């Protein structure tokens, strides 16, 4: 399993559980825009970042919140994997 996939799996599980995503929600994928589609609100964005930092022992800069790629599970996984591998 690649680092990206591992991060994406853990993040998907976290978001499904913390933000009550229904199991039969077919619209929810690892490429859905989490902010625009309302899966994670502004307060929840902080929780997602805290989860990623704690789980993978990294520090995400504040500016990442406006990275156009840091809006989906896959995009976040790419960014985190990049930080893990320096």
């Amino acid at each position: 399993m690649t680092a990206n996939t591992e991060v994406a799996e853990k993040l998907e599980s976290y978001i499904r559980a913390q933000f009550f995503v229904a199991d039969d929600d077919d619209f929810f994928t690892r490429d859905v825009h989490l902010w625009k589609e309302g899966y994670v609100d502004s307060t929840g964005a902080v929780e997602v970042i805290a989860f990623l930092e704690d789980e993978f022992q990294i520090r995400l800069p504040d500016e990442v919140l406006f990275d156009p790629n840091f809006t989906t599970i896959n995009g976040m996984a790419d960014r985190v994997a990049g930080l893990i591998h320096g």
Partner: protein
Amino acid sequence: MSFTTVTPLGKPLPPILLHQTQKQPPAAFFEAWRQQPEFINEIDGHFATVLVDDDGTYHLLRDPLGVHKLFFAFDPERGFAWSPLLHALREAGYPPRTIWSLPSACCARFNPSQRRWSLQRYREWDYGAWSGESATTITGRIRARLDRVFAQLAAALGDIPVWVTLSGGLDSTGIAAMARRFFSKVEGVTFALDLDRRHVAAGEDLHYARLAADHLSIPLREIHVDGDTMAEQLNNALIHGQDWRDFNVHCALVNACIGAHGDLPPGSVLLTGDTMNELVADYSPVPFAGQTFYPLPRLKPGRLRRFLVSGLDSGDREVGVFHHFDLTAIQPYALCADAYTALPDAWLANDDAKSALVRQVMGDLIPAAIYARPKVRAQVGNDQQQGGTLAAMVARGINGDHLKERFAAQLNCAPAFLDSFLRAGIYRSPLGPDQIWADPSA
């Protein structure tokens, strides 16, 4: 290489600059920074500025906690502009997608003709740095830091009368107690919503504000406002508070009422207890009328504080609002952020953590009754019954959706733009030059 200061759009916001030994005009500090970038590490304060050099490179600089705001805009037609007020850039005709913020504790270089943008963070907070230190050492350091900041403020401001916004809580009473020691003329100002001056309940903010003023032997100016008068200040609270989220708007409303009342002479300096709650993560959501207001991320206090502190990047509930009324707000706790962020996580874990900390730092400078006061958020009235600004707004149907739509209308933008401009307490900043020239999220 010579530099000139770029005049902001709107009303310029005078910087508050502190240096351990030097006392200079702000322009000299900023020029010293341009000549020697490391100089920024010797400065504390509330500031935002933009300089431009001979080759057209703009140098942007903002204070470590983001107390002063720095919005900038660029489009090929209008060129570059900046302002501490988002609204000023919209009024100048810049489309929303061309407007950005410089993050707190950052400096940036921007050259439009060369399409260059670079961002550098010059300060990081070392959260929990004092883990393992004794309580006596920690509280002694915090007290020494407060003493130093107040001495620097007194030196920078000179022997002028200062006001303290006094709510009767620990934070503002602590500021009043320190101000009393370092300034020769201190006066308190407090705000009461819908209260009969003669019958103040023992649990009310006003009761404790009077008690604190009496203990410190400072005069107290009381500003009494009814709910309708407060609601009239909503546009000022939104435009100059630069945020639509209820916890900031409600705080901004109180400050707008104080400013609009006109009791304080123009140009007055106000010292406030703001930012302490962020620095020690002393917030909790408020249940009222079947809803939960002021929601927070579900994190432990030690973890939460980093996000509350970085969230000071957005919202201008004090400095911006008071500035609109020609009053200068200074937040001394923000100037001691390095000390408070160094507190070990364990110090924040208990519900009465702040009270215990303040007691050790301030001792009997603060009256015992204020230490014993049940914890009440400033915008929700007293400890017997939720009320205050929150209730006044809810009673008038002014809820979160209304605030967002109204703020968007004032900025002449779509409400959806606000979600892309302010996320998790941070105003958006460009990641690189490509975003400035073509924002794909626009």
